[in-house]
């Protein structure tokens, strides 16, 4: 069964460094999402992406964040200058269309900012 994959599974970085988290959505899906979960807190929506542009973003998704679909398979989340409070589990998800009820999640990337 097709799955969403994410790399790396764990990333450690120093404060102020740039990180890129990578995701490979399910191949025929058109909508892509990033969520994050700070330890002990809720899973929070960051951004959704369709047709090579952001369709919605949360207030968390400020200028330090960007998303890109650099080729036909990858979907990336870049954090330009990481802060301690960016430490979290980041989940990528994809869905077939806007009206699909199900979003398929990847296993997550644990980002640790030191």
């Amino acid at each position, binding site marked *: 069964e097709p*799955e*969403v994959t994410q790399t790396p599974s764990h990333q450690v970085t120093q404060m102020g460094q740039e990180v890129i988290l990578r995701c490979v959505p399910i191949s025929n899906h058109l*909508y892509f*999402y990033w*969520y994050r979960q700070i330890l002990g*807190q*809720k*899973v*929070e*929506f960051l951004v*959704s992406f369709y047709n090579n542009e952001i369709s*919605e973003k*949360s207030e968390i998704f400020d200028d330090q964040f960007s998303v890109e679909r650099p080729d036909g398979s990858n979907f990336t989340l870049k954090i330009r200058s990481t802060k301690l409070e960016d430490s979290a589990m980041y*989940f990528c998800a994809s*869905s077939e269309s*806007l009206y699909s*009820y*199900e*979003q*398929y*999640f*990847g*296993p*997550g990337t644990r980002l640790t900012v030191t």
Partner: protein
Amino acid sequence: AQTVTQSQPEMSVQEAETVTLSCTYDTSESDYYLFWYKQPPSRQMILVIRQEAYKQQNATENRFSVNFQKAAKSFSLKISDSQLGDAAMYFCAYRRRGGGATNKLIFGTGTLLAVQP
């Protein structure tokens, strides 16, 4: 703004027994989805069951069923005949439904379910 609340951080059940996980939500919308997602240790979240708000009948998927009380804004998950493989974090989630609606999921904080042999 919509919110989802799970008041049980942890639950435990004996194998073969039944357990109910609670979820309440708040919304002013009338058309929406509610979901239960399961996240096994070190694995991705998978959809367990969904409920459309316009449907009065409670959704059922094999051993999993929900008790959807729209007026009370309550959406509990019942797991019957619990199995060791049911041990996981369970997230309740909400999503608006309808043309042009946002498709973001709003999650609760999760309930960690342990299954005792």
